[in-house]
């Protein structure tokens, strides 16, 4: 947990560097998704698209939203939404894909 005055200048620089690096990585991933749109990948298009979206989400959550510095409890709360979405999508598709 960070509170004012406890962060050292070194840590400060590293944090800035880290955030900027993550930002560049995110933009690079965006370019890849965009580029993939013009390449016919067939059935893999959604896999690539949503795979990259999930990677981007993890990056934003872990680094920008500081999940890496949070307690296990908060991480669990963050994972909760994802897990329940998985339940919703899986069982819904269980109907639509086998109808």
């Amino acid at each position: 947990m960070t509170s004012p005055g406890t962060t050292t200048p070194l840590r400060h620089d590293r944090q800035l560097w880290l955030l900027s690096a993550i930002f560049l990585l995110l933009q690079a991933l965006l370019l890849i998704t965009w580029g993939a749109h013009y390449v016919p990948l067939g059935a893999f298009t959604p896999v690539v698209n949503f795979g990259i979206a999930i990677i981007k989400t993890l990056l934003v959550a872990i680094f920008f939203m500081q999940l890496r510095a949070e307690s296990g409890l908060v991480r669990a709360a963050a994972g909760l939404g994802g897990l329940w979405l998985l339940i919703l999508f899986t069982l819904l598709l269980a109907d639509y894909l086998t109808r």
Partner: protein
Amino acid sequence: MSTTASPPLGRRLDTRAAAAGRNYLNESTSLRSWLLTTDHKRIAWLYLASITFFFFIGSLAALLIRLELITPAGDLVDSDTYNKLFSLHGIIMVWFFLVPSIPTTLGNFLLPLMIGARDVAFPRLNLLSWYIYTLGGLFTLTATLAGGVDTGWTFYTPYSSMFSNTAVVMAATGVFVVGFSSILTGLNFMVTVHKLRAPGLTWFRLPIMVWTLYATSLIMVLATPVLSISLLLIVLERVFGIGIFDPALGGDPLLFQHLFWFYSHPAVYIMILPGMGVVSEIIPCFARRPLFGYRAVALASLGIALFGFLVWGHHMFVSGQSLYAGAVFSLFSFLVAVPSAIKVFNWTATLYQGRIHLTGPMLYALSFVGLFTLGGLTGLFLATLALDVHLHDTYFVTAHFHYIMVGGMVTAYFGGLQFWWPKMTGRMYSEIWAVIAAITLFIGFNLTFFPQYLLGIAGMPRRYHSYPEAFQLLHVASSAGAVLLAVGYLLPAIYLPASLRWGRRVDNPWGALGLEWTAADTPPIKHNFHQTPVVTGPPYGYRNDAEPA
């Protein structure tokens, strides 16, 4: 909790509260101090007032429905009125009574007391929840009374989105708004349980009531938003014609059912879990035995909350859902029934070698076990794929969920209210009348709803305004029971308020051992405890060798 010997029942203690003179009720008395309170105990009272109001509106609609069904011809009210009545009954009872009742009244009052906290984690959010609930509820009530809504509480599309010409938009908006109250309460409770437990109060020292409230909150937080979005889609459809459920655009009417039941099946567990919590407190107290299989019951609560999300498709076995999906949902439905069965067995085993006091609350609790068992067992019929084909959308379903929700949840709610009434008010209600009311409720309930199982097997569909004459006999029996049931509900509405004036002052009339009884004054002071309690042992330290009163 750390107490070793339990005081005998009925011991009249010189109230510490009276000695101190100050408690959360008399600390300030202006209307403003009530309407702007952030004290969880006062908010519980605010909820109790609102919920009682909605409960009697909903009950009135039920009574009219039963009166109408005495004759097969449908001659008391016309079919549109009848449809509006059962929609009103369903909407009010589900969203403004069953879902919020125990969590927001007993839960609000007890949760911080049971975990040794001074309040919930977000007291102002708690008050906001009440305002959202009450204003949203009144808005919906206005819609259902003034314009009327005839979609049933299920709002099935495309009837609700394209065909009904009633006040669907207003009603759906109201339910949408009230959803936020539910979400905020759940969120508040979850954070409270995680962050505000007293020193020494580990998870496996929590009373089952707290476990069930936690499980309930989890469902509220994760299921309610899906209902919100599906209602929002109906509203958008009716206002802007966005046609998400329009078959002409390739829309699938079943999509709404999927989203709706993703909320509404877990919502059934929102309704019943806190009832299970209440019963798990009452039975050990009056059997003077620790709850049998504490860990099993605690974990079963979480199991129900999780598995409750995997079963929603059992409402759709004949709806045109894929057969394979149906099979999966059926399997999970049986699995979710296992933890419920475990609970029933554990409650029964708690009685063994006990010293059983058949007080009013205990009668309610034992009624709960019996009625919930029958309701749960008939749920197995409906989870069985082939049997559901015939029973789906018949009175069998109506009977089944009324056994769970009315026989189960409402009975637990009444029992809990009376069990903790002395704690909430510092006054004892009339026990004789409580026993009479509990017995009346039990008989009236069975007379009302058991015939409906038979009607369902005979093939009588739900939501029928008129029906073939052959079904009349059972309908008349059911309606007669409803009158008795109404008496059972009205009695507590008389003797509980009366006790505020004439009831004797008590501290812990049951010799109960929860933290709320042993560590706080009766009624509690503003921030609950004079000093933060420290917990050293497991809950339910009752002993059956205590001397009788």
